[in-house]
């Protein structure tokens, strides 16, 4: 039940984001904060790479932010 709700919440959030796209967003000259390095969603951070490798080798789940798998025989 709880898992179903979590999945449902994710889908609803996603649908809300996509359906509201036209009324959301900023003009090109309003991207001062969004262009900062600490606001880049797809930054291939070396910290994330190290953390993902530790969690991949110690837990049964991996991926989500990017492709799963670790190219490692440790799990």
């Amino acid at each position, binding site marked *: 039940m709880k898992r179903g709700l979590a999945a449902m919440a994710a889908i609803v959030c996603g649908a809300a984001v996509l359906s509201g796209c036209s009324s959301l967003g900023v003009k090109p000259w309003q991207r001062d904060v969004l262009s900062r390095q600490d606001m880049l969603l797809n930054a291939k951070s070396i910290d994330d790479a190290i953390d993902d490798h530790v969690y991949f080798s110690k837990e049964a789940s991996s991926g989500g932010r990017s492709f799963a798998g670790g190219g490692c*025989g440790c799990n």
Partner: protein
Amino acid sequence: MQLKPDAASVRRRLIAASCTLLTASAARGQEISKLLTEVENTDWHLDSALAYYHEDGRVMAIEPLVNLSREYSDGETLGLNFTFDSLSGSSPNGALPSRAAQTFAGPSAKSLSSARRLYTTDPGQLPADPHYSDQRVALGADWQLPLDRLTRANLGGKLSYEDDFLSASLNASIERDFNQKNTTLSFGVNDENDLLHPIGGAPLPGSDYLLFEKSGHKSKNGVGALLGATQVMNRRWLTELNLSVDRFTGYLNDPYKIISVIDGSGATNGYVYESRPDERSRRSAYLENRVGWDQASAALSLRYMTDDWGVHSETAQLRTRLWFGHKSHYLEPTLRWYRQTAAEFYRPWISSSAGQSTSYASSDARLGAFRALTYGIKYGMQLDQRTGRTGSEFSIRAEYYQQTADSRVGGPGALQGLDLYPALKAVLVQLGFSY
């Protein structure tokens, strides 16, 4: 990231551009402008780290990483990364603690009597191979190519090598901006092929440990797809939603993991190698929100994952960056919470008297039910003014990770009172340098 080339290079190119400017016709002005743009964008950016990882009473690892990236004037970007891992220490072999001492052979053994290396675990202790050692080298490359003003293609590959494991993966994705670049949709696929050549051979799943039924190489293959959407909500807030699926097939066992066979009195009667299904399909939903203020930013990510082995997991992570001194320094505290349920075939031991089916069984604690907490802090110092390059930084990071087992089933008879589910505690210390 825009980078500044060295002064001599700039001077040479500017002189050349100036000469050209003086002699060229007006029609060539556009070409000169292109050259100047190229001058600004042709340097490599270095991102490097040295990580030290230590588990309490188990393994330790040292891991240097180097990422190089370069942005070209036509918008293409190339990323290259190199990783080296060196691990050593004690690695749990999957057997339970016992009231009696337990003796095991190293993985290269063909029989217990002829083994070159034996190790003995004291009564009450978790059996672990004390001579575990492994080195890994990984190389990766990513290339992003603009297809038009709003569409980009990404191609990537990774090669990872260990003494007993070789992995090669390729990925490709396409992404397109909409709504004045406030919305981005992406779709990607990934293919991974792994070759396992365990030390001493790959054991026959479920076979008796003492029979040493092992054979050469094994393989596994994984394919995955990821659908992503990012949306700028307002000037300070953006969000990302990823939905992904993947499927792995082949030899999915850990070739070094065994399971204790326990009788009704709690005594260990023997061991068998673990046996996992040869297919696994996973699905996940990942949601991340980033919010930025003038002197701070926060990233909250949530992930739900489920697979057909019966593992369900939830992850929540909050990372906050606090800037100081006109953004010349920052502190970044991190908190991560994780919980997973056990795989359907997870068994801490196999009961010989109850006649349990051993079709699929694994005592690997990573497939058991547990929760984990990570606390971390990072300090970063911007070096842009000292190096003259944008994005230069020195950082130091420390994290503490602890796993605690859920759903602890007590052992029969003599196993009562023994710690069958010891917590995993680990620290990570990392030095970082970007230039």
